[in-house]
């Protein structure tokens, strides 16, 4: 016991100067399939501690160059991601994708501003319209990690349903359930499905810009038709099975039913936010936090149906 205390005390001594060291995301590339790496974010909410690294970003190294999928929450993240890519391959980066308008997925764009950045047309509009206020909010939430980060718009809107680089042919599909415009990318060569934020796994989904849970549930059905080997969610661990889709489906159904039943019973919003969350979802992080926000985003629409 005494020796343990001493160890802790000495750790504290060492930790002091370490805390003052420059912030670093310490990104660890995880090779999930041939030529394919994922940088998995934490299953957390934005905070000063994690610097906004709660998001999955990916890159695919083809014979003719690298494709980057999402650039993270800040300029710093983008730069560190670029360094990670350079540590894996000498090949140049050819294309960068922004899967949707949310700040943790595109605010690293500045680090890639010499490269073509592609998004769905609507995503570009959304970033143009709301990007600055998203960035401002990120400064408020995570602080100094954001230093010098500014909105860098996508350069090119996607007009084709595929893109080929080297021997990789990527199918590009427009979805909308999470944010109104969500890009899903399927690599035909490896069978990896980059599901963007249409899929959250083991981390509760977020709803500030969903057109509605019914649309999102349809999107999940559509994803089931992809014959993938690996699925990369926007948030949460990569898997080789259908658990993420099954979890999304039951969680979306539960949310929809809970909000419908609450509206039918005339519950007020303060009552709804305290409703029990099904034990089925115990393994998912942040269910209560996100449920409370979802009630703010969506419950008025459900109430409207039962006046």
């Amino acid at each position, binding site marked *: 016991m005494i020796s343990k205390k001493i160890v802790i005390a000495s750790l504290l001594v060492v930790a002091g100067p370490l805390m003052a060291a420059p912030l670093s995301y310490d990104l660890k590339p995880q090779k999930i399939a041939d030529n394919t790496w994922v940088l998995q974010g934490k299953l957390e909410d934005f905070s000063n501690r994690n610097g906004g690294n709660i998001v999955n970003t990916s890159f695919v190294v083809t014979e003719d160059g690298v494709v980057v999928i999402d650039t993270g929450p800040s300029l710093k993240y983008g730069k560190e991601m670029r360094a990670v890519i350079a540590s894996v391959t000498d090949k140049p980066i050819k294309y960068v994708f922004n899967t949707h308008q949310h700040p943790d997925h595109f605010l690293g764009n500045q680090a890639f501003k010499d490269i073509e950045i592609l998004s769905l047309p609507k995503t570009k509009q959304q970033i143009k319209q709301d990007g600055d206020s998203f960035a401002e*909010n990120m400064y*408020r939430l995570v602080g100094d990690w954001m230093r010098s980060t500014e909105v860098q718009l996508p350069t090119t809107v996607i007009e084709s349903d595929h893109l080929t680089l080297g021997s990789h042919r990527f199918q590009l599909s427009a979805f909308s359930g999470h944010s109104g415009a969500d890009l899903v990318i399927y690599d035909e060569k490896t069978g990896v499905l980059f599901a963007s934020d249409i899929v959250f796994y083991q981390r509760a989904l977020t709803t500030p810009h969903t057109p509605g849970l019914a649309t999102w549930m349809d999107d999940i059905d559509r994803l089931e038709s992809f014959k993938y080997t690996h699925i990369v969610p926007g948030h949460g661990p990569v898997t080789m099975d259908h658990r993420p889709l099954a979890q999304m489906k039951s969680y979306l159904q539960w949310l929809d039913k809970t909000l419908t039943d609450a509206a039918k*019973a*005339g519950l*007020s*919003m*303060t*009552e709804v*936010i305290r409703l029990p969350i099904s034990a089925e979802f115990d393994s998912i992080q942040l269910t209560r936090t996100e449920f*409370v*926000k979802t*009630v*703010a*985003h969506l419950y*008025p629409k459900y*109430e409207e149906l*039962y*006046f």
Partner: protein
Amino acid sequence: MKQKISALALSAVISLPAYAVTDPLESPLWDYMRKTFIGNEPYVFDDQVKVELPEFAEDPTQVPITVDASALSGDIQRIISWADLNPIQHIFTYHPHPDIIPRMSLRIKVQQSTAVRAAVLTKDGVWHIGGRYLEAAGGGCSTPSMANADPYWESHLGEMKSRLFPREEGGRYKFKVIHPMDTGLVDAIPEFYIETISVRSEGGEPLARMELSPPVSENPVITFDVRDASKKHRIWLRDNGGNEFEQEL
């Protein structure tokens, strides 16, 4: 309980200067707000007065709150609710009636993180103070109402939707009224808000009454519970422009 309350009240009246009772929410404006809304009248912080809200204002223009003073039911003269750090602090004042349970839910605008209070004056002349702290990124009171960008309200002002929901005991009314509820804090948009809501019997006799202030959200959605769901009720509203609206609930 009664004894404890009067003992506390007594101590507040006789000996203790205001700062001796610490605000459990540690708000910098507590003492000023207290003087503004309840003057030098005796008060106690009382857990029986519940203010329910989310910890964080996801949308600072639509923060749900519930004030529940049903534990003091039958003993209430008046309820005042306010947000300490809002530019317009007052939210509503409620005048009870035996037919209506003193528990109401609505949505409010907040300008920044703030304590949200409810002060309940009981018949013995003591104010019972409840409250909760709300975190917010801010801007709710100085954001233009949606109505400002969409002329829909002009032709629908005062339109109400309502429904009676069965409860285990009695019934619950929820109603929504179209109104911009402008705060007057947005450049060149004067304050324009519903001042008075009166719940009336079928025959038009006034029962409970609420006086609202502009921090109540645009297109207010208000929920309250009645003891006897078999009785019919009407709602009557008046805004600060003198418009009156009345509808059967």
